């Protein structure tokens, strides 16, 4: 092989590899966020693994709840705006959604914990955000979240906010756009 072709081949290979690396950054980012809680996503824990003896009764943490909808014809509320729990104890919150439109809608809730540095210490045993929620026209549903605040939570955090945003699942997204290309809310 001509030396020029050899160099060219190697460099072309490098370019292809770097294209692959761009995609590899996606799992790397997700693993990195899992470890650090960088993007506010929370941890998961099996309810059997929660040790009732490990509850730290000397400390109380306030967990506040926040509910948002993005272009979804639903109502989304939480029964109690905030609860106080001891780290290690199983806490519970009840959320309610109602489909106010006259069509069936599938939604998915994306959780986020603020401050983000605390999100790795927030583990859920049960969450409606793990799967898609399908609501018929006018249907109402009650959903429960069970969570444990890790006993390792640094002392500087006295309260956390757990926020949910319900999105319509992309497959049946029926977003209208105006002339300028901006999305306008569905009027339904």
């Amino acid at each position: 092989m001509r030396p020029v072709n050899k160099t060219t081949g190697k460099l072309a290979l490098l370019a292809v590899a770097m294209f692959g690396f761009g995609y590899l950054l996606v799992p790397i980012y997700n693993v990195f966020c899992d470890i650090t809680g960088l993007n506010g996503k929370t941890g998961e824990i099996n309810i059997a693994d929660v040790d009732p003896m490990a509850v730290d009764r000397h400390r109380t943490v306030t967990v506040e709840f926040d509910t948002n909808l993005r272009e979804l014809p639903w109502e989304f509320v939480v029964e109690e705006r905030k609860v106080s729990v001891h780290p290690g104890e199983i806490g519970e919150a009840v959320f309610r959604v109602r489909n106010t439109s006259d069509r069936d809608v599938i939604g998915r809730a994306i959780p986020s914990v603020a401050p983000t540095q605390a999100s790795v210490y927030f583990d859920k045993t049960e969450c409606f955000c793990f799967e898609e929620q399908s609501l018929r026209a006018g249907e109402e549903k009650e959903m429960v979240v069970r969570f444990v605040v890790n006993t390792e939570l640094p002392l500087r955090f006295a309260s956390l906010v757990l926020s949910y945003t319900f999105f319509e699942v992309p497959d049946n997204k029926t977003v209208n756009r105006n002339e300028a290309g901006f999305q306008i809310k569905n009027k339904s």
Partner: protein
Amino acid sequence: MSEAVAHHDDLHDHKPTGIGRWLFSTNHKDIGTMYLVFALIMFFVGGAMAMIIRAELFQPGLQYVDPLFFNSMTTMHALIMIFGAVMPAGVGLANWLIPMMIGAPDMALPRMNNMSFWILPFAFAMLLSTLFMSGGAPNGGWTMYPPLVTQLNDAFPFLIFTVHFLGISSIMGAINIIATVFNMRAPGMSFMKLPLFVWTWIITAFLLIASLPVLAGAVTMLLTDKYFGTSFFDAAGGGDPVMFQHIFWFFGHPEVYILILPAFGIVSQIIPTFARKPLFGYESMVYATASIAFLSFFVWAHHMFTVGMPLAGELFFMYATMSIAVPTGVKIFNWVATMWKGSMTFETPMLFAIAFVMLFSIGGFTGLMMAITPVDFQYHDTYFIVAHFHYVLVPGAVFALFAAIYYWLPKWTGHMYDEKLGKLHFWLSVISVNVLFFPQHFIGLAGMPRRIPDYNMQFAEWNMISSLGGFVFGLSQLLFVWVVIKCIRGGEKASDQVWEGAHGLEWTLSSPPPFHSFTTPPRVTDAVAHS
């Protein structure tokens, strides 16, 4: 040209004629010329957009254009200036000069060279066509952050495929440059004898090959997110829009060095010539350039300090960013040390080179200020960052390109350019560019956000001054075009060496050089090795 002369040319150079000469060209000089002409045209297209921006910002309130179009202008101005003007101009210079500097007859892969150029006009035709589409041209910023960018209408796929094409073109150009330098050096031209321009281009080419495919991946993810139901960046499907920023800036930071490293190379050629001294610290220049390029892959998140990173991340990216100031400082020191006690003369290329060293340093220092995470929260997305990157790109990269054209144009055309007009162009440019960009530091610190067509009354005076500087700078560039045209048409005959203090293989060729640079490999002696 008479028949006899044309025939004579044919015998020696096998030069095709007519439009075919340009369309099917495999000659490094012709392709270099096309790259440079294309870059100049794009410089004026992007410049016209900048004029619209400055006209709208001349006074507070909405004057001439609607806000959406204004945002298209800022977005398109950036895309065109980065990918259409500065990068092709750099590749054009590389095409013209690298074979002449290393003692080769042409580039290693001439057909690929032709392809990588001819992709560009089509890519930019695609991008510019979006101006006439419903919903308008891309207006979410050149960084293409989702979810804003995926809300574009018809322009979206055009934007994505333009980026793909530009990436393919640049990667092919970069492969060609490395293949040429690695395989076609004249005997005796060892790596540590290469002129610095060639060195900076090797390193730039590696940056291009390593970073542009990552951008291609990122925009492909945008494309599939919008049309094929993936959710890389769509929160609704469990994706994360912040991840786009990480992937984009993993490309984006090396990209800024892709724009500036060739400029470093140009200045390292010009200053020794007019100081009549060899370059101070040649080896340290090579190592400094390589370290800047290496470090550029570990600092991307300083573009996104405000997205909410953990403290450890902010500290890491702050220190990593600041460490780049060390090799950059080495380079500035070396340029100044080269001038120290030199027999300096101040022809136009030297004036532009000295202005580069001074004004690029200002841009570098504001960059250091923004590397400090806590204060960056104030500077982020204000006119301060606009002032910063325009200082490193306009009196930085663009001035270096002007310097290069003035420096090598006599070699390329065989005629001296008009020194008086060249100096006039320099003084008009250097004064107006400071009037244009320096006040933007003040309004940025005072809190004026970027990419917004209207602003508070308190910013009115400085914006007006900035716009006036902008108009003068824009008009001054017409003078540059005139100087170049005049020089191509005729003028005082240039000698082979052109400049008294010029050293290097390209100055041993005739002015203008033969169609195929070195048909027999030259002897590389210390005198011609590097200046």
